[in-house]
């Protein structure tokens, strides 16, 4: 962020939040006192669990002391002090020089990252070059040109799937490839304290989000910061799922708080008659053959579904060795990271055209502004705008789903899971994961055949997208590719071929990788297939299929 903007944004965020609460304080004499008291309470509780940094403890102790005797004027001062503190922390310390360079530092940074970690790793990996790892392995797909065209027409809000802390780095580099300015990004505080990653965070346009701070005005500051920055034309990136997907599935439920800032910023832009008022929401998927933190994520998911930890600090990402191994696997295995952009959306979930104009479902141009008019002028309307945000969320979920790219690892994991379930009918999933059911392995030929069936299923459903390598290759090649990945990076092989059998070794990870295909009703289609068993197996074993799976590449 430009330094002049930094100051402006701090003032603007503080004054907006302050004014909002001053307006509300007219509703009752206790309003401000309650608000301040709640904030102090929340912060002091946090400090009990978390060692205070700097003067935090004394700051809140001081406020608590002043509170009982404070006049309305004094209360306003106290609120302002708290807001200023939050805002300053969120904005962080950007280095202007670094910022200007930041589009080019990402790849350099990756080399540094690898060098730093390779100090703890095998010598022969020292030659590994971060730039080539990323450049050679990221595949940009989908509406890349469309997104680029919209740059000069409004502000982008990029909303990707989230499976790894590497996502923000990958996307930072993707943005660099696309010649986008750095994307403003709210990153968890834990990322800033991680020595390897803080470098990127500080250079990707990241601002600090402390998820341990539960005070409502802190969250308000974050939202307002994102809103004001967008109004200033800073393109924005945030993960709409709120956290890394624990199950491995593509996000289907989104956090609507930050998503809603698109509508707010748009209306503010219109009210201030800004030059380029439009905000474009861009769904985006990031797919890996292997996911750096897969083991921790799926463990967390299975530990107690629904009670997952929101913040994980001790995962693979905090272990340099793991990052190094991961990077070298990507480099040596022709690993792919597919970054796929969906069609950009307007603030009510319509697609927009190349010119940035809203389109109705029949492709007719719509005046975007008409959605936010009240008596002919642009105006906020809390209830309406919440529904618009829901419309965006629905459209984004659809966009993510359509543009989800599944790799050979996902396809084969899905296939093995399906074979396991068929082999052990009626067995509870958790038991199946723990015991592996009645057989530790399947004949390799069966796995290939069933993989071919899965690929056909996905092709017929037209969703998700098959990675190019899978689409153009035979099922045999896909199985080989997946097994090669499966035995490379993870602590234990996910699945392994021994002789002419494929052993399912780490079923939790199988589930994780398979889940990338969940939510498409493929199970239902699969069930229909197998209920007409004779026909289905004929299909799978059709000469054509066998021929193609046996064909050398």
């Amino acid at each position: 962020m430009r330094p002049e903007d930094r100051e402006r944004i701090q003032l603007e965020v503080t004054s907006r939040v302050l004014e909002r609460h001053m307006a509300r304080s007219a509703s009752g004499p206790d309003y401000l006192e309650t608000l301040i008291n709640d904030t102090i309470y929340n912060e002091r509780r946090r400090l009990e669990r978390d060692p205070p940094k700097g003067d935090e403890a004394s700051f809140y102790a001081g406020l608590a002391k002043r509170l009982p005797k404070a006049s309305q004027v004094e209360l306003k001062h106290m609120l302002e002090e708290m807001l200023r503190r939050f805002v300053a922390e969120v904005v962080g310390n950007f280095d202007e020089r670094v910022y200007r360079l930041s589009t080019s530092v990402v790849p350099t940074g990756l080399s540094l990252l690898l060098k730093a970690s390779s100090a703890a790793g095998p010598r022969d990996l020292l030659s590994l070059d971060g730039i080539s790892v990323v450049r050679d392995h990221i595949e940009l797909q989908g509406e890349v040109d469309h997104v680029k065209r919209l740059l000069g027409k409004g502000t982008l809000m990029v909303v990707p799937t989230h499976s790894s802390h590497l996502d923000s780095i990958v996307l930072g580099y993707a943005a660099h490839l696309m010649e986008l300015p750095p994307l403003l990004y709210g990153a968890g505080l834990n990322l800033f304290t991680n020595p390897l990653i803080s470098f990127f965070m500080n250079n990707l346009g990241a601002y600090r989000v402390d998820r341990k701070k539960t005070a409502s005005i802190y969250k308000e500051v974050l939202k307002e910061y994102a809103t004001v920055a967008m109004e200033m034309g800073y393109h924005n990136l945030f993960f709409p799922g709120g956290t890394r997907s624990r199950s491995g599935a593509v996000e289907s439920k989104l956090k609507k708080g930050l998503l809603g800032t698109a509508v707010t910023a748009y209306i503010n832009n219109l009210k201030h008659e800004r030059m380029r008022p439009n905000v474009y929401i861009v769904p985006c998927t990031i797919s890996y053959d292997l996911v750096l933190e897969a083991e921790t994520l799926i463990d967390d998911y299975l530990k107690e579904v629904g009670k997952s930890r929101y913040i994980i600090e001790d995962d693979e990402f905090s272990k340099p060795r793991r990052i190094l191994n991961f990077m070298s696997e990507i480099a040596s295995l022709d690993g792919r990271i597919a970054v796929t952009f969906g069609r950009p959306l307007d603030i009510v979930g319509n697609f927009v055209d190349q010119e940035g104009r809203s389109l109705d479902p029949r492709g007719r141009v719509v005046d975007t502004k008409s959605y936010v008019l009240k008596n002919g002028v642009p105006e906020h309307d809390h209830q309406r705008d919440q529904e618009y945000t829901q419309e965006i969320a629905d459209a984004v979920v659809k966009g993510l789903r359509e543009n989800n790219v599944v790799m050979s690892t996902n396809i084969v994991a899905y296939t093995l899971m399906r074979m396991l379930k068929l082999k052990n009918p009626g067995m509870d999933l958790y038991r199946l994961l723990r015991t592996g059911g009645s057989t530790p392995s399947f004949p390799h030929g069966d796995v290939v055949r069933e993989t071919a069936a899965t690929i056909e299923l996905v092709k017929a459903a037209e969703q998700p997208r098959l990675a190019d390598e899978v689409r153009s290759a035979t099922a045999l090649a896909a199985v080989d590719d997946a097994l090669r990945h499966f035995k490379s990076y993870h602590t234990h092989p996910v699945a392994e071929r021994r002789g002419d059998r494929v052993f399912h070794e780490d079923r939790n990870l199988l589930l994780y990788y398979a889940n990338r295909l969940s939510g498409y009703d493929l199970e239902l289609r699969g069930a229909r297939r197998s209920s007409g068993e004779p026909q289905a197996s004929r299909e799978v074993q059709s000469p054509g299929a066998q021929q193609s799976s046996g064909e050398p590449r």
Partner: protein
Amino acid sequence: MSETLRVGVIGAGSWGTTLAKISAENGHPTLLWARREEQAARIAEERCNAEYLPNIELPLNLETTADLQRIAEFSDLLVLVVPSHGLREIARQLGEFVDGSQCLVHATKGLEQATHRRMSEVIREETCLRKIGVIAGPNLARELAQCGPAGTLVASHYDEVFRKGHAAFGNHYFRVYWGHDVVGAEVGGAFKNVVALAAGVLSGLGFGENSRSLLMTRGLSEMARLGTAMGGSLVTFGGMAGIGDLIATCSSSLSRNFQVGSRLAAGETLPQIQAEMKMVAEGVKTSLAVREFATQHHIDLPIAGAIHRLLHEGGSVPELLADLMAIPTGPEFAELTR
């Protein structure tokens, strides 16, 4: 209501005309769209829709048109009251002229046959509109046209839609409630027509109130099963668009679907009845869509299934009765509390 709206009612059947009449009487400049020019002209000239709502005088501030563009550009609140099978086409044409500022409520009680889509979904697919709602309740057009006290529900995700719906139609004889459950209101409105067909048959066979009440109660249970499966909220079916509409439609000989049922019981065939009827009995088509949806989603709807056999599988009235009485009994709310 102090807010003066420009209200455009699309569809000059009995219910569309009645809604336009109420809105105009409430003081809102109101435009009524009829498909045929001469129909629009005749209604304006005679101050009466002789074809669909005879002997009801229409207010002076109610104008008519056959021009969709005109009504689209005129209206703050659009009211779509066309048969379900024609709704997509009208919505698509309307989509040429509307913008995102406008509100639309529809009063069409059916599901699209080929897609099983609810009407609000069809409107969403064919226009840029977001502020969409549905008006549904125990509303027999003729009674309301004669200012008989009644109530209804306007359901929308957008508060502005039911504020406007309330402003347009609420008055001293028409009580407008509101809610957010669009799915429930649409499914209730569509499904009750299927039950009304069965009620007509029972009535035509000379059965009494016990039989009708049994049918309606179990019909309500099926409505709720279908509605919750489609994403509606259970409580909606205890309201205006659920049981309210069901009571009116199954009790009144004015109801078209009821009429179809009783004529079937009297020995007429479906093609005969449909050829003679000027108005559309939505239940006949809805039973097709419901049947397909229920089969696909494994929902048990025995009454709807029995009606489907009668109407579309060559079943007979005695067979319908046998079907209905053969539905297994058990814990009363098993299907809903499962």
